[in-house]
């Protein structure tokens, strides 16, 4: 009985894993340009209003699922996206810890798990590894342990290849690449934790004050 209940719970978890989870997901992504049609270089804004609380969706690593049954690999179906237009947004345990007030901690430059390189995210990484089936997590219950490592390695190799051009451009743009990468990473993670939504604390007005070096600013 307990075993059946666990199996049912696991199935439900897998089934709803792809569902959008937060009320922030209310802005649809920009519609792709129609094929074969010339595009206007600029477009009029839909509305001329301020956006202090306008939710924005981080674009990286977002998966589109247009059919409620297409999301089998990341959840059996995704009615929230299909019927309500809510967009899937990747979250990880490091973001969860950040929302709950855990600071980033020291920056770590690890060669294999490149992007998750502050202490908070590095500590959260094993949780994501176990829970994300794409990293070889839950489904490896039924598969050899090394299958998960193979899938994860392929995934990171692919990601590294995809951002190769960006890394070269970043190195060229930076005066000190290590510091530039660290700062961009930390800023990006803060944005992820805010789910891309600007708050009253961001952006920081103090950054835009001219400091004369004597403690006074204008």
């Amino acid at each position, binding site marked *: 009985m307990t075993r059946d209940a666990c199996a049912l719970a696991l199935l439900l978890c897998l089934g709803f894993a792809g569902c959008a989870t937060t009320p922030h997901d209310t802005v649809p992504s920009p519609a792709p340009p129609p094929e074969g049609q010339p595009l206007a270089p600029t477009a009029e804004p839909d509305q001329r209003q301020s956006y202090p609380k306008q939710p924005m969706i981080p674009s990286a690593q977002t998966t589109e699922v247009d059919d409620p049954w297409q999301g089998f690999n990341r959840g059996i179906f995704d009615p929230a996206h299909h019927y309500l237009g809510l967009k899937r947004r990747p979250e990880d345990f490091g973001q969860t810890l950040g929302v709950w007030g855990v600071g980033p901690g020291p920056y770590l430059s690890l060669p294999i798990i490149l992007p998750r390189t502050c202490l908070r995210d590095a500590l959260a990484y094993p949780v994501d590894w176990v829970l994300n089936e794409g990293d070889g997590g839950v489904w490896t219950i039924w598969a050899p342990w090394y299958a998960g490592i193979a899938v994860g390695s392929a995934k990171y190799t692919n990601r590294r290849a995809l951002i190769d051009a960006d890394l070269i451009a970043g190195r060229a743009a930076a005066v000190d690449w290590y510091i530039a990468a660290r700062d961009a990473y930390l800023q990006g993670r803060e944005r992820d934790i805010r789910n891309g939504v600007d708050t009253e604390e961001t952006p920081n007005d103090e950054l*835009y004050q001219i400091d004369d070096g004597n403690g006074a600013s204008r």
Partner: protein
Amino acid sequence: MSSTRSTTATALRASFALALALAGLAAAPSARADGEVAAARATMQQTVDTTLAVLNDKSLAPDVRRSKLESIAVDHFDFPLMAQLVLGKNRAALSTEQQQQFLDEFKKHLSITYGRTFNKYTGAEKIVLDGGRLEGNKDVTLRMNISGGSAPPDGVRIDYRMRDDAGKWLVIDVIPEGVSLIQNFRSQVQEMVTQKGVANLIQTLHDKNVSQAQAQAPS
């Protein structure tokens, strides 16, 4: 009785007038904010249109195009202020001459580095200015979304922070996907000045510009 009714009517009219006045006071800052955001938007829209006109003009030679784009950037970016913001409190450690050197190299660095991103432009990009916000210090932040063409599949979001300089709105920071250029450069400058000194910072920037210019020069 009539006197009482008249007094009541007068009080009601006075209350109504007071309420209107208060509503007007409350609405005034909002209207002013809208005006500033609209002015900044108009400037940015004009900059985008001018830039796209240059990029879409296929008759221009690459070096002419680059020079036109540079002049647009000089007109619409407040490079001296950006350099000061990047230096932050380290500005006091630089002599006037060093500050000027840094400004020159910084401007050249941005011009070379970010001018190169225009090479990716395909003409199929859709650029939309989505909104604007008046910041606490009267700056305006505008949000631009770019999709299609060379943009990533989900598009890219770039915020521009602008400041009114004697009636002219100038860009003082570029924030792609939430990563502030000023903040990023300030971190680098802070670390370099602390570890290696001001002279080394300017020399590194200079060397970087020379090597990049050589790499970009037509062979």
